């Protein structure tokens, strides 16, 4: 933040007048649910400031700073290459194993780090929840956006690696859609965990463990075709499966499992609706519960 330029030290009265005029009268009554699209659209400035705050805080007093973004997926990649390729020799249908695992990990990296941080997005802002009226949804969304580097960096690495290996195809144009799908899915999941975490601290306690297990319950280190029967059904029921399949189709032109895509899309939509209802319901008592 730089010093305020002198020519800006005088308040623009027209600006202020507009601001004052916004709520002529508000009627506060008992409600069962408090959430609105307006919470987000009317608070884009606040989201921007919160994201800037989270990013600044994340990398302050850290020597390696953003280099940590490479570390987590890279360490997992090495572990997968040793465990699934060198030891188990998993068949990845012609794609080099490291590239196959990297594409999967680039999606997982965001889901795991964003949902781990996001589950605490409300608990970590106790003062804001208890003493200010800023819409709580904004806190969770800002947290998810501040985790976006954990998506962009590994995803870019995966795309570059795929291009260098000669996998470029027209499918790549749709890669941003797969990434957006991932963010939506993560947002829905995180809105649920974050709002429940205000009441039940078991949620943030259980999440790291679930994420540790979760990396093996999605087609990240191995292709879904390697499974059959019950395990395949379980894998298909993981909404991340479809996202990863879609992403691999974009980056590596691997034909996706159509059923998995359809199931995951449906689950994402259901999760998003559930998140809206749950978050809105819990938002009413958040200041009391936190």
């Amino acid at each position, binding site marked *: 933040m730089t010093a305020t330029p002198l020519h*800006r030290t005088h308040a623009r009265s027209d600006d202020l007048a507009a*601001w004052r005029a916004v*709520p002529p009268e*508000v009627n506060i009554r008992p409600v069962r649910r408090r959430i609105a699209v307006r919470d987000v659209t009317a608070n884009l400035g606040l989201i*921007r400031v*919160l994201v800037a705050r989270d990013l600044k805080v994340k990398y302050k007093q850290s020597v390696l700073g953003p280099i940590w973004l490479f570390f987590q997926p890279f360490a997992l990649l090495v572990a997968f290459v040793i465990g699934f390729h060198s030891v188990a020799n998993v068949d990845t249908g012609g794609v080099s194993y490291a590239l196959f695992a990297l594409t999967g990990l680039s999606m997982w990296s965001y889901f795991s780090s964003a949902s781990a941080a996001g589950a605490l997005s409300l608990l970590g802002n106790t*003062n804001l929840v208890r*003493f*200010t*009226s800023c819409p709580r949804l904004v806190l969770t969304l800002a947290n998810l956006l501040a985790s976006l580097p954990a998506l962009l960096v590994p995803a870019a690495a995966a795309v570059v690696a795929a291009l260098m290996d000669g996998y470029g195809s027209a499918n790549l144009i749709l890669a941003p859609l797969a990434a957006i799908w991932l963010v939506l899915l993560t947002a829905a999941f995180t809105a649920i965990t974050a709002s429940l975490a205000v009441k039940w601290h078991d949620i943030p306690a259980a999440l790291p463990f679930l994420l540790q297990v979760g990396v093996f319950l999605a087609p990240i280190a191995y292709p879904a075709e390697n499974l059959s029967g019950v395990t395949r059904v379980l894998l298909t029921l993981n909404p991340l499966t479809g996202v990863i399949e879609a992403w691999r189709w974009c980056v590596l032109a691997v034909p996706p499992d159509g059923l998995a895509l359809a199931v995951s899309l449906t689950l994402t939509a259901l999760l998003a609706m559930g998140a809206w209802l749950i978050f809105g319901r819990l938002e009413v008592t958040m200041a009391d519960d936190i």
Partner: protein
Amino acid sequence: MTSDGMPREVAVRASGLGKTYRLGERLRLGGAFTKRLRREPVHKRTIDALDEVTFDVMQGECIGIVGANGSGKSTFLQILSRTVVPTRGSLTVRGRVLPMLSIGAGFHLELTGRENVVLQGAILGVPRRTVLARMDDIMEFAELKRHADTPLKRYSVGMQSRLSFAIGMRFPADIYIFDEVLAVIDGAFRDRCLAEIERIVGSGPTILFVSHDLGQVARLCERTLWLEHGRLRALGHTEKLLERYRTRQTPPAGVDDGGP
């Protein structure tokens, strides 16, 4: 804007306002949930933090709110600032509310003073341009011009509360709420804050002022509202009301004798 049946001069109107809290843990092993499964009776203990509270605050008025701990002052202010949802009744608010329910709520210690002002502005919904325009003024009022770019974690508690107050005083609003916040700052700065509140009172905005320091209430507020056990005990001229309040207060407030 005038055809809503509400006289123009009312800034805050509470009617039948109530807030009930459930006591005890909501859900845990061996708690109500398991009891329900076993079909054992569940005792829902509740407390009315606020009950049947009805009154008007006029525009441009500085109204004091007094009452013992747990009388519902903070609950009322939380409802007014929209952090807490009421259980019954309604509260009509006209104009922008700037709540100061706690010193430095929303401050982030890793960010500088200036960055925290921007953050507070965003949280309170003040336009960014206005925030930047008032930055120097805020820093001057807080006597922190030299430390504007120092991270807040290097501030003393006193510096943080000065910054918090300067923000509360210098951001524009129609209704200002001060909940016991003057208690934690001391000496000369408190006097400046009181003088500043007095200046604001005269210039149009409405102020709701909560304090245990009855001298401050008497100095600032023409009318005062007395809450007791979540109910409106009295509302009237500060001087007369405080006289009654003081005599009422003499028995130790520690024991809850079940109300008047």
